[in-house]
């Protein structure tokens, strides 16, 4: 005889106003907590790194940008994508994220090509993280100690972290640590570490910066800066900054719409990554609402963090002075290894080595945690490819004890090291290069979302989100809005000489990006398909749309 309970409203089955009767059966879990998934997304999006980019790149590339407005424009372009990913993750909660969405909705080759390109550029961007981790994390931490009176001998070590070999060795060491985290400790160990880092990240990289910014006058900041530069070996640091900027041709032109829009290239960094949480958060059906709090909620939170941090930081350091810092030759004001990023500037403004230490450590923690996160993302995509037989089965082997795909992790680590070497020793890629190709993938995902209600009608119509807006399926409307937002961002990236993927300035990188997406990805897919066929395996079966009738 069946046993029952009258289901409560939040049963993840979706039904339940008291007129649904659930059998006592396995797996009827209730709504998952959105809080943790939300925290994860906030951390994953790289808000602090984006802020660092802003104050390092904006002075030379877009000096007349109004950054809060830039952030709002980027958020407007990206918020549709957040709802799109939340809807898709709720509909298809599977390992492999966009690979699954696109391959099951449009075509497997496009799903693979889009995901392969995304993973490839995620590998490439690791070099940026290594650079910032070494130069603006570890190097800045040591330089700050000297700036607050520690022995000068530390300065050469601090400067070493900004050198090519410093970046490479630091990146390699952190890559090996990240790989060891999974191989020895397992995924659960990593998640615990990540939780701990999150608190440090929010306090150090944002909250303390806001507080220091709010309670420090510009005059007081300049005083601290001079003292700091003095300890680094240069007197009248602030005056030297102004003089150096003038020599470099800088003059304050106020805000312009042109620079404000172009600077979206930098703010878009958040949106190249914030949706990637679907690879992690979507593996079980945590409920109908979880992803909506977690993904769009994280976008709102990160945007708010930036909108609070930017004005308070600029209140302290002064927009003009920040632009001068970015344009003057750093050696003229005593920062031989390079201009300071915002955490070090906030550390100087705080007037306290302890607060400064926490600020830079929070920033560093966020970057360090990003490395294994990306490792997990890539290895999960490898798993999904391997399950579909596009890649060898070895890639999907998971260790019984640690639950880690060890072979996949080791391959990712090797690719990380190659990327770090490329950033450390060559000028092949710029800081923002990856955004254009990553947004290509987002465009394809938006397209998949827009047509999913028509291509996978039964799946969509049977979901809890099968609503209509203006006569169109909700997902189609959201997909179109996301597509338009991504397209505008893509146009900005293609027309901005500072993006590293300008069609006029960097046509080779644009072609390489398109080649990897439309050439290498399909080549691997169709090559694998032919190889599997020779083994008697029909790859198409893995994606077959099986008729129910």
């Amino acid at each position, binding site marked *: 005889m069946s046993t029952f309970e009258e289901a409560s409203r939040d049963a993840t089955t979706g039904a339940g106003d008291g007129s649904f009767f659930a059998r006592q059966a396995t797996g009827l*879990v209730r709504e998952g907590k959105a809080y943790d998934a939300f925290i994860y997304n906030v951390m994953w999006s790289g808000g602090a790194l984006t802020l660092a980019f802003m104050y390092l790149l904006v002075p030379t590339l877009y000096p007349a940008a109004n950054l809060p407005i830039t952030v709002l424009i980027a958020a407007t372009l990206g918020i549709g994508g957040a709802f799109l990913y939340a809807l898709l993750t709720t509909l298809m909660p599977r390992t492999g994220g966009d690979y699954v969405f696109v391959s099951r909705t449009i075509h497997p080759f496009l799903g693979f090509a889009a995901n392969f390109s995304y993973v490839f550029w995620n590998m490439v961007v690791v070099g940026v993280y290594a650079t910032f981790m070494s130069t603006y994390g570890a190097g800045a931490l040591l330089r700050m100690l000297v700036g607050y009176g520690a022995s000068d001998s530390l300065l050469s070590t601090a400067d070493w972290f900004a050198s090519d070999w410093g970046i490479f060795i630091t990146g390699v060491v952190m890559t090996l640590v990240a790989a060891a985290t999974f191989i020895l400790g397992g995924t659960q160990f990593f*998640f615990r570490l990540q939780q701990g880092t999150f608190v440090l990240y929010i306090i150090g990289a944002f909250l303390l910066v806001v507080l220091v910014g709010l309670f420090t006058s510009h005059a007081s900041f300049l005083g601290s800066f001079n003292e700091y530069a003095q300890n680094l070996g240069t007197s009248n640091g602030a005056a030297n900054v102004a003089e150096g900027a003038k020599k470099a041709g800088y003059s304050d032109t106020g805000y312009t719409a042109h620079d404000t829009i172009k600077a979206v290239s930098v703010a878009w960094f958040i949106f190249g990554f914030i949706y990637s949480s679907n690879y992690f958060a979507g593996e079980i059906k945590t409920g109908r609402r979880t992803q909506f709090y977690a993904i769009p909620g994280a976008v709102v939170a990160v945007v708010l963090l930036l909108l609070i941090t930017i004005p308070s930081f600029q209140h302290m350091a002064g927009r003009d002075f920040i632009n001068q810092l970015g344009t003057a030759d750093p050696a003229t004001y005593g920062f031989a290894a390079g201009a300071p990023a915002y955490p070090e500037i906030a550390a100087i403004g705080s007037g306290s080595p302890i607060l400064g230490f926490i600020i830079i450590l929070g920033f560093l923690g966020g970057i360090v945690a990003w490395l294994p996160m990306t490792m997990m993302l890539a290895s999960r995509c490898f798993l999904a490819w391997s399950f579909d037989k596009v890649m060898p089965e070895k890639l999907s082997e998971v260790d019984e004890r640690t639950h880690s795909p060890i072979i996949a992790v080791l391959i990712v680590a090797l690719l990380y090291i190659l990327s770090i070497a490329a950033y450390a020793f060559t000028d092949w890629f710029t800081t923002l290069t990856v955004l254009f190709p990553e947004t290509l993938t987002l465009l394809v995902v938006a397209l998949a979302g827009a047509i999913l209600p028509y291509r996978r009608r039964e799946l969509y119509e049977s979901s809890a989100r099968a609503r209509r807006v203006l006569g169109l399926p909700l997902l189609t409307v959201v997909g179109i809005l996301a597509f338009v937002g991504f397209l505008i961002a893509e146009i900005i990236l293609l027309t901005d000489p500072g993006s590293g993927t300008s069609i006029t300035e960097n046509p080779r990188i644009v072609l390489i990006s398109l080649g990897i997406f439309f050439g290498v990805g399909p080549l691997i897919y169709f090559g694998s398909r032919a190889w599997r066929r020779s083994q008697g395996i029909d790859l198409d079966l893995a994606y077959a749309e099986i008729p129910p009738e």
Partner: protein
Amino acid sequence: MLRILFATDFHGAEVCFRKLFNLAPRAKADVIVIGGDLCGKGLVPLVERNGSFSGQFLGTPFDVPAGEQTEEIEKRIRFNGFYPYRCSPEEIERLRSEPEHLAAAMDGALVSTVERWMSLADEKLADTGAICVSIPGNDDELVIDAALDASTRVQNCDGRLLDFGEFQMVGFGASNPTPWNSPREFPEEEIERRLDAAVDGVDPDRPLLANIHVPPYRSTLDDAPLVDEQLRPVIKGGNPVAGPVGSHAVRSFIERYQPLVSLHGHIHESRSASRIGGTLAINPGSDYSSGTLQAVIVSIDLRKRKVKGHQFISG
């Protein structure tokens, strides 16, 4: 070469069951294996008032006239693995107040659905030489066993050893204890005893295949999201915390008898394949609520007693 097509954990989603039998010819399957958990998870009443039906499903209320629109709602309910149940306002009160009445209504829905599925399987297999084997799973009420046994083409191998000449297959549907107190759960010792009894008389000179609903413990086929006392998924750092929940007895059985292939389900999220000694253990997972069939094709060289390969399917 023997080609096995295996899928499991449909949980009432008829669309997945239908897809399995439509996939079989394309997959060139010699043997179709169903790994249990056929029963859906709940009853969704459609209350009839003045020629229209009302209720709520997937959080959305509906009130539609009898006919096509009602049938469409019923289709959606079945698609998601639930059972639509037409009733009067008075009967809703009876379902609420009389547990026996509710249980009888549910059992009726379960049995009639399994009967319909078995008829469908018989029809689909009529002109083929394919073998079809099934077991119930831990979520399946005992009342469906008669419907499973009544099929002319689907053989129920729960707790039994079936002899197909070139190979033998053992089946077992119950699981080790779960937080949900599902209908077929046994302590580990009992599972071990019953599995051993099932293979009593196995011919060691011919390949043995296993269709055991619950996966072996700590095999990567059994990583399930952990739940708290309120049955909420435990989430740390934005990630569901997973842990091995398979059966020690099943693992021990595989280690001792070394079937060529061991097919499992139960843990929908743990789609994986893993070697335990010479046995290839596979869980294709399940995504029944999205109407997606998750299956696996296993190719076996019976002469060499070797698994040639396997391929996961999702469609």
